[in-house]
C-alpha cells in the first residue's frame, strides 16, 4: 500500500512538474504578432511593413475582390489570397534592409504596380 501511495505521489509530482515547464515555456515565448493585410485592385493595405530582425510575424491576408498573390521572394514567403478566405503565412525577418513584395497572380490592368516594401531593422 505504501509503495502504491509513493508511486502515486511521484506520478502526481511529475505531472505538476511538466505542467510547470509548459507554463514557463508559454510565458517565455510571446505570441507572434498578426499583421492584417487587405489586398484589392491594385494595392495592399498596408503596403509597407516595418519588422524587427529575428522577430517572426504572421501575415494575415484577405482580398476585397479577385484572386491575388503575395510574394516576398527575399524571404521565400508567398501566398494565394482567395476571395472569401483568410490566408496566413509566417515570415521570419532574417536580414536587415528594404525588400519588395508583389502580387504574383496577374489580376488586371494595374497588376504590375501592385507591390509594397518590407523594412527590417536590427
Amino acid at each position, binding site marked *: 500500500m505504501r509503495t502504491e501511495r509513493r508511486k502515486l505521489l511521484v506520478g502526481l509530482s511529475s505531472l505538476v512538474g511538466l505542467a510547470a515547464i509548459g507554463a514557463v515555456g508559454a510565458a517565455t515565448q510571446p505570441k507572434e504578432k498578426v499583421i492584417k493585410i487587405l489586398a484589392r485592385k491594385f494595392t495592399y493595405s498596408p503596403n509597407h511593413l516595418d519588422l524587427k530582425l529575428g522577430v517572426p510575424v504572421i501575415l494575415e491576408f484577405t482580398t476585397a475582390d479577385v*484572386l491575388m*498573390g503575395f*510574394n516576398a*521572394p*527575399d524571404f521565400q514567403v508567398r501566398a*494565394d489570397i482567395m476571395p472569401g478566405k483568410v490566408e496566413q503565412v509566417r515570415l521570419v525577418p532574417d536580414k536587415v534592409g528594404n*525588400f*519588395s513584395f*508583389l502580387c*504574383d*497572380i*496577374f*489580376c*488586371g*490592368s494595374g*497588376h*504590375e504596380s501592385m*507591390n509594397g516594401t518590407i523594412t527590417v531593422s536590427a
Partner: protein
Amino acid sequence: MSQSIDRREFLKLAGLGGIVFASTLRSRIANAADAQAADDFYFVQLSDPHWGFQGPPNPDAKGTLKKAIAAVNGLSDQPDFIVFTGDLTHTTDDPKERRQRLAQFREIASELKVKDVRFMPGEHDASLDHGEAFQEFFGPTHYTFDHKGVHFIALDNVSDPRAMIGDEQLQWLSADLAKQRPDANIVILTHRPLFDLYPQWDWATRDGAKAIDLLMPHRNVTVFYGHIHQEHHKMTGHIAHHAAMGLMFPLPAPGSQPKRDPLPWDPEHPYRGLGFRDVDAEVKTSEFKLTEFPVKGA
C-alpha cells in the same frame, strides 16, 4: 531607290540604326547527317509590342511596331519565318477592348512580307481570360514545329495567371521531348524567363524549373523569350536563354532601381532600348548567331 536592301546595310537604310550587338553562342546542330540535310536559315524575333499602350514612355506608341515591320520588310534576304514572343497587346480589363487590340495587332502584323509568322501570348494578352481571346485570333498557345533540322517548341507560361506552365503542359512537353534524340537541336520559344531572373519584379515562371529539368537531358537547347523588354543572356547549365528587347518601352536592368517602371522616353535618343533580333542558324559552324537591331525613327 529600291526597297530591297542587304541585311548588312539594314541599319543604315531601313530606319534602324545605332549600335549593333551581336552575340554568338554555340549550339550544335544534331549531328553530321543533320548538318548535311539542314540548310542555313535565319528567323526574326519580335517581342512585347504592347499594342494599345498609351503613355509618356513612348510618344510614338502607334508607330513603333509599324516601323519595325517596315524595317523587316526592307530586308532583301527575308527570314524563313518570324516569331512574336508575347505581349502582343497591352492588357485591358475589358474583354471587348482586348479583342479589338488583338484584331488591330493582327492587321498590322499582316503587313509582314513573310507569311510564316508564329505568335505566342504574353500575360498581357492571356492571363485575364486564360488565353481565350488570344486563341480566337492566333490558335493554340503552345505548339511545336520543325524547320530545317531544328525542333521548335512554343511554351505557354502566361495563360495561367499564376505564371505557371502547369502539369498538363509539362506532361505534353515531356512526351514531345521523349520523341527527340538527346542530341536533337531544340529551340524553346516562350514569354517569361523559365529561370528565376528576378522574382522581385515577377521575372520568373513559378514552375519553370520543372521545364528546365525536362530539357536538361538534351544537349542542344536554346531558349528565346521576351517579357523583360531588354536583351539578356543567361546559361542554366548548358541551356542558353536569350531575352529580346521590346517594341513599346524598355524596362530597367533587373534590380537596378526600386521599381520596374518603364525607362523614360529620351527625346535625345528616341526609341532607345527598343528593337528586335535576327537569329542565324549556321549549320556549317554549328552556331546560333544573334544580331540585335535597335529601332530608330525614320
